[in-house]
């Protein structure tokens, strides 16, 4: 079937002002086009610079479905390449992370590359003399991803040579990453834990949408968070302190009014966050010694400013979500139209008390693990949607909550926290980044 390929009009028509066609979630051709257009045109999270502490350190990742890797070069710079040998395509690195020493060496025929990707040596090199090898792409070594920006240690890459610049793409949304980093008294995060990985049999966009879906927690999570609150009430006896676990689960059961007034902020290009005024992370118990450290580092006023900003979920379009207040990043990695690998990372606030790290790790396993009861609630909904959308009875998904009939696109705004506007914002961006290079490519082919 070739209904959508090269047909920007047909793709744009899948996204109405306040509805989207179910093909965006279930059509394999749309998924292929997302891999070909949407992901290369967007800025995608690759990893964190703390994972590349020493020269020779490397990590592997995917941009869409394309394997890439990042490495720390001998001169300290960070480089991102496609993870494939220029000879016959063998993946250079097969592990999530490691240290390669002074150079990468392909395991198949031992071509070797410097840690900036350039070709170092080929065994029996004279076999290439006079063959025109010098003019091939292979002679350049590992193919570089040229558009790479490292923002406060967060490594982002855009595969397409042309497109929206990093600054224009993210704009003010970077304030969530800023806040997360600023929460370290040293202004520094470190990845020390392997991510929790969780396979979802649903389209990746369902997960992204769910991040700002504030009308589901008190319903879908009544079974988990609701039960946690109930069991604690019954069992607490004369306990004077609420356990950290109950502090984390409890706020999920906040009523609609809480989410309404906490607000949603949207930004251009599909980014946005819940929890503007306050959030489910606002009322965790203070951790002894932390505030003092922050005041010492930043001064009274700035420390309170940083800790007073307690955003809930920030979606960085297309496929990550950041929680500054608990130092978690969730990466929704598309595998197939109905399969998504979710990797949830915890960052350690360098210099902060261990208790904060304990809490972040606890939150991650409570909410983001295949063994998480909150995760079970959510995945059940995504799986049912993935099945239900095959029905032809109604081919549209409704995103009309608090739609006022004339929404401006690509703006910054703060709105009622139960609005589905951030989902609409994402789909506007989706159509934009899906189609922005389509006509150009057709022209080039003609």
């Amino acid at each position, binding site marked *: 079937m070739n209904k959508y390929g090269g047909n920007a009009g047909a793709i744009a028509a899948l996204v109405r002002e306040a509805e989207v066609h179910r093909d965006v979630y279930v059509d394999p051709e749309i998924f292929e086009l997302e891999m070909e257009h949407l992901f290369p045109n967007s800025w995608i999270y690759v990893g964190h610079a703390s994972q590349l502490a020493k020269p020779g350190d490397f990590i592997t990742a995917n941009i869409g479905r394309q394997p890439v890797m990042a490495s720390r070069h001998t001169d300290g710079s960070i480089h991102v390449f496609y993870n494939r040998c220029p000879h016959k395509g063998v993946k250079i690195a097969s592990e999530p992370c490691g240290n390669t020493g002074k150079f990468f060496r392909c395991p198949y025929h031992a071509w070797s590359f410097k840690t900036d990707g350039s070709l170092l040596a080929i065994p029996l090199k004279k076999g290439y003399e006079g063959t025109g090898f010098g003019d091939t792409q292979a002679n350049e070594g590992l193919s570089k991803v040229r558009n790479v920006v490292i923002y406060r240690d967060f490594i982002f890459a855009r595969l397409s040579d042309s497109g929206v610049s990093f600054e224009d793409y993210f704009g003010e949304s970077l304030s969530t990453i800023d806040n997360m980093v600023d929460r370290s008294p040293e202004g520094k995060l470190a990845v020390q*834990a*392997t*991510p*929790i*990985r*969780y*396979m*979802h*049999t649903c389209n990746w966009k369902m997960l992204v949408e769910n991040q700002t879906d504030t009308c589901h927690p008190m319903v*879908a999570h*009544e*079974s*988990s968070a*609701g*039960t*946690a609150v*109930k*069991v*604690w009430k019954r*069992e607490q006896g004369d306990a004077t302190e609420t*356990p950290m*676990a109950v502090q984390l*689960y409890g706020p999920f059961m906040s009523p609609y009014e809480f989410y309404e007034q906490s607000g949603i902020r949207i930004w251009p290009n599909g980014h946005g966050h819940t929890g503007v005024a306050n959030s489910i992370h606002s009322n965790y118990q203070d951790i002894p010694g932390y505030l003092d450290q922050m005041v010492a580092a930043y001064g009274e006023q700035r420390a309170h400013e940083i800790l007073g900003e307690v955003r809930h979920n920030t979606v960085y379009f297309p496929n990550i979500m950041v929680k500054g207040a608990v130092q978690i990043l969730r990466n929704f990695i598309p595998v197939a139209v109905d399969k998504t*690998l*979710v*990797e949830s990372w*915890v960052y350690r606030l360098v210099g902060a008390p*261990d208790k904060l*790290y*304990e809490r972040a*790790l*606890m939150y*991650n*396993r409570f909410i983001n*693990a*295949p*063994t998480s*009861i909150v*995760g*079970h*609630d959510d*995945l*059940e*909904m995504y799986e*049912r949607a993935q099945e239900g959308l095959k029905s032809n009875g109604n081919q549209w998904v409704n995103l009309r909550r608090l739609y006022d009939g004339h929404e401006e696109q690509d703006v910054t705004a703060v709105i009622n926290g139960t609005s589905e506007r951030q989902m609409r914002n994402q789909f506007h961006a989706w159509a934009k980044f899906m189609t922005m290079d389509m006509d150009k490519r057709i022209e080039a082919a003609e």
Partner: protein
Amino acid sequence: MISEKTITDFIYEEAELLDTMQWQAWLDLFHPEGRYWMPLEWQQQDPVLQPSLMYEDLLLLKVRVERLAGERTFSQKPKSRCHHLLQSPRIVACDPAAGVFKARTSYIYTETRGDNLERYSGWASHDLVRVGDALKIKLKRVDLVNFDAPFGNIQLFM
């Protein structure tokens, strides 16, 4: 007197309770300070400052058990079932004088729900204490052989 056979019988009995979904009786096997731990790293030492899949006390295990029966627990419609296939436990310690009872059991665990069936392999380590005449679980540690792989929902107990 607690013998090696008492420990082995305890472990078989525990698996039986899980397979027959006698959740409350299973919870009763735990010491009030007991923990259920599923590490996320090879030979992991620290459940608190290293990432785990699960590290839960009795309160949280009660929440899980109560949730399984909840009217609005949609991920349990239909209900999951499980099956434990255990190798004979290897007794690591059986020292009544010191009150130390430990065993390690290799297992294959199956969890099903509707038409889906998932199979997991690993080792269960039991750290037991004596309370009155009975043994209770101080720590049940479940190490999956492929702890680092991405799983779908694991809703019951290994």
